[in-house]
């Protein structure tokens, strides 16, 4: 049991920090531009694919830097030539645009890289078990992922709290309508924020690709979870995004680790059920089975009972 | 004369800032009542509190003697209070005609019915056309409201507000941003359509205020410092000290 708990904590941390890399960018974009970017996870996927292609020529490490930069440029271009154009039609149109973009990017990725899973793997130097506990390996690459995520977190925190740009962004997050009054070039700021947010997602893709697989469906698998994270954390709250990322990371890993089922609960209450009953699927439902839908239940509950999210101040 | 609207100890805080600091005011049934005051005094906030857009921090609001504190805007509207907005607030993609017709639907008890067609209801359509006639937009009725000129949108705003035939009408700066001749037209319009009803209005144009209002309240920094007939208010020393000095600057800001 201790073994399960320790490894679940570690695994949840890896997932949670990865989610934070995605949700931090999405939160920045939403806070400043009011756009919920459906295609955010698509930039994550682009990051993985770019890094894969780069790694086939010059290896993993250059890709770690170049791929996020490329994704950032792609994001900035999308903002400049796509989103800005749609902006005047309102937020619903923007949401529809990013939805279409997500659809399109998946097709484009399949066009260039094909449909099969790409053999994008961790560099040799990180392919060893960092430590072994109760006979279980903890891969060094996972530790590397934690390291990068924490580094990004610290970097982001420093930039936001110390630098001038950071202060402008913070002001814009808390008072979204004032940013234009600050005398800054708003379109340029928007383009920059969108680019940086996309680059963060791209970086997440670069480091997640070898661990979670690089395939055309990788954006779809993660896409809506990231939405859940930022809504649950509270739209516009970076701290909330951080808390919610870890919460959902652990929620999912522990739900899988713990074999509780409705059946056990009923047994505890001394109730038995008919194995042929129409609701038999409900009675045998177990926690690992429902693990992936727990975030969505959480999302709906939050939206109904606390629309500002755990730590947000703005209603969605 | 009975009271159409009563405010008792109404307060509103935004965070630590107190915007409305305990207002007691009684609007008599059938009177035309203007609320004046410098910018930032809390006039629009007071309107939002009465009409249900904001929830108040403390106090009670009575409409025709009935407590409407904490009700939603639509519930207050159904009890007979209708308001306009300082910043034009219409249905931009609907036609001018439809804007007014939407203002009529609830009052004419159509509610959310989905078994009647709006185009077959003669009384509904005729009344909408009458109102359009009254506000002078009859020949613009097929245009999307969003493309109307500013003054026309203001008139439409009033049209929507009065359409439902509410007892109490609240107009928030109905003449703001209008030329002199446009203002005259609006004043005549207001006088005409609020005949026999209770009118509460916020207005900066003192000419309009003293022309239209039966009584005037002066709101300064979230408090009513004087209420009375135009003559009384004009004569009030407190008003002169606290407000009339400031009105010039306010007037400059507006224009």
């Amino acid at each position, binding site marked *: 049991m201790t073994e399960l708990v320790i490894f679940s904590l570690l695994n949840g941390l890896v997932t949670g920090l990865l989610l934070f890399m995605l949700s931090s960018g999405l939160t920045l974009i939403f806070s400043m531009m009011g756009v919920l970017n459906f295609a955010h996870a698509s930039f994550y996927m682009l990051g993985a694919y770019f890094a894969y292609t780069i790694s086939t020529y010059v290896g993993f490490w250059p890709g770690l830097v170049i791929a996020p930069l490329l994704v950032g440029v792609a994001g900035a271009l999308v903002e400049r030539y796509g989103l800005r154009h749609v902006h005047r039609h309102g937020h619903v149109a923007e949401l529809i645009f990013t939805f279409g973009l997500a659809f399109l990017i998946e097709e484009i990725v399949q066009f260039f890289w094909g449909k*099969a899973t790409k053999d994008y793997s961790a560099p040799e130097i990180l392919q060893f078990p960092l430590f*072994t506990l109760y006979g279980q390996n903890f891969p060094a690459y996972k530790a590397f992922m934690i390291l990068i995520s924490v580094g990004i977190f610290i970097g982001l925190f420093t930039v936001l709290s110390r630098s001038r740009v950071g202060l402008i962004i913070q002001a814009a997050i808390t008072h979204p309508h004032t940013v234009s009054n600050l005398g800054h070039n708003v379109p340029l700021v928007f383009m920059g924020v969108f680019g940086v947010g996309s680059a963060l997602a791209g970086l997440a893709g670069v480091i997640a690709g070898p661990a979670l697989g690089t395939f055309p469906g990788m954006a779809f698998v993660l896409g809506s979870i990231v939405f859940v994270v930022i809504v649950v954390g509270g739209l516009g709250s970076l701290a909330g995004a951080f808390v919610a990322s870890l919460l959902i990371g652990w929620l999912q890993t522990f739900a899988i680790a713990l074999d509780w089922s409705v059946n056990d609960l009923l047994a505890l209450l001394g109730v038995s059920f008919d194995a042929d009953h129409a609701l038999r699927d409900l009675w045998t439902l177990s926690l690992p089975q429902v693990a992936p839908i727990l975030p969505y239940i959480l999302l709906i509950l939050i939206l109904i009972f606390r629309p500002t999210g755990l730590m947000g101040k703005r209603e969605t | 004369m009975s009271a159409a609207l009563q405010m008792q100890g109404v307060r509103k805080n935004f965070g630590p800032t107190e915007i409305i600091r305990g207002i007691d005011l009684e609007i008599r049934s059938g009177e035309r009542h203007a609320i004046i005051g410098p910018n930032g005094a809390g006039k629009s906030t007071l309107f939002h509190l009465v009409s249900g857009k904001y929830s108040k921090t403390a106090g009670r609001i009575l409409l025709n003697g009935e407590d409407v504190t904490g009700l939603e805007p639509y519930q207050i509207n159904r009890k007979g209070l209708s308001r306009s907005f300082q910043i034009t607030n219409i249905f931009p993609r609907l036609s001018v005609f439809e804007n007014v017709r939407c203002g009529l639907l609830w009052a004419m008890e159509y509610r959310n019915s989905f078994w009647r067609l709006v185009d077959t209801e003669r009384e509904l359509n005729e009344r909408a056309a009458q109102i359009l006639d009254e506000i002078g937009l009859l020949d613009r009725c097929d245009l999307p409201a969003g493309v109307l000129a500013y003054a026309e949108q203001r008139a439409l705003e009033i049209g929507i507000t009065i359409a439902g035939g509410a007892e109490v009408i609240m107009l928030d700066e109905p003449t703001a941003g209008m030329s002199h001749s446009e203002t005259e037209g609006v004043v005549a319009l207001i006088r005409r359509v609020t005949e026999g009803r209770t009118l509460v209005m916020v207005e900066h144009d003192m000419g309009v205020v003293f022309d239209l209002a039966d009584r005037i309240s002066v709101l300064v920094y979230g408090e009513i410092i004087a209420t009375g007939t135009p003559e009384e208010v004009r004569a009030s020393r407190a008003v002169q000290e606290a407000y009339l000095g400031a009105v010039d600057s306010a007037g400059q800001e507006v224009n």
Partner: protein
Amino acid sequence: MAVTRRTAFAATIGLALAWSAGAEAADPIKIAFIDPLSGPFATTGESGLRSFEFAAETLVNAKGGVLDGRMFEIVPLDNKISPKESLIQLKRAISDGINYVVQGNSSGVANALTDAIEKHNKRNPDQRVLFLNYSAVDPALTNDKCNFWHFRFDANADIKMDALTDAIGERSEIKKVYIIGQDYSFGKAVAAAAVRMLAEKRPDIEIVGNELHPIGKVKDFTPYATKIKASGAQAVITGNWGADMVGLGKAIIEAGVDSPIYTYYGAHDGITATFGPLGEGIIRSVREGTLNPPTPEFKALDDAFKAKYPDNDINQPRIFNTIAMLAKAIEAAGTTDPVKVAYALEGMEYDTIMGGKVWMRPSDHQAIQDVHISVHTNKNIVVDADNSGYGLANEKTVPMAGKDSPTSCQMERPNAA
């Protein structure tokens, strides 16, 4: 045997050429291939299509076709792995006068098709259709949901599990088994069969985990691997396929598990290449048609295939059985009338290119054939997978697996006339 057959064919070709020179060119026999050719599963669909086209070309058309010179033509119809789209494509095939439909990917689609074809044949007796299922392994298709028009050329999930549990049963050191699969009918069928058969064959084995995970939704299998490792399992059984197979396998191995992982679909289509050295001696697959060591005939076929499609493998040898047996049945029936061809297929015995026999069991139209347990390795690999140097080496063969397995199928047979 092969030689005599070839001479016979040559003779037929000569005759056929002589005939068709005089007669009008014979219509090709069209076979509708309804499988995903776009979307996430297109890779699998395309690889199947290439095998079918290659099989039709080499096994039938190059030998002069059937019924005196009628060629096989594969008509690819993209179903996007959607039951709805499959039914539209079925209608398209029927409009084109096609009598034979092949499909393999997804039991859900197979079920929709077999259901629709049964209804269609009942409602339109003059335009019937046969359904040759080359890959969908849900046991129900040849049990409760069986019908006369459906023939399955792959071993079904129960038969494979029977072979698989035989293999586990022989390894007395295995005392703890973990079962994990995708949360849908096939994953559940695999789990149920595993539990039932292990209890029969090795009551001493403890099932330390029986888990279903959502299909296609798990982004990280590490938590499952953690659990499997913690349970002390000495063998893992999974019916996972596609990305779920790769993710699960990699996570389990990375967590430090080195006990065998028994899979249904743990090879080919990029999976072998992805496992590479990591899966050496760990990943095992249960399947028909062994690959290593191959028969000389199969080696020759594979070389020819590779020459044409260097990036693909013959990973579903049963496709070649499907085409060869259909051709044989049409010849035997002397007509393309689906009812007569179906009767000719029932009970047919066929010697495969891979070695061994296939028998189309009449009671449920389930092909009975040898099933093999093979291991992922790079030693003694003649025919590799994904050009990776790794491939499947045979460990154990269960001859004519499931020959006497029970079936609940009760088929209504039409009049042969």
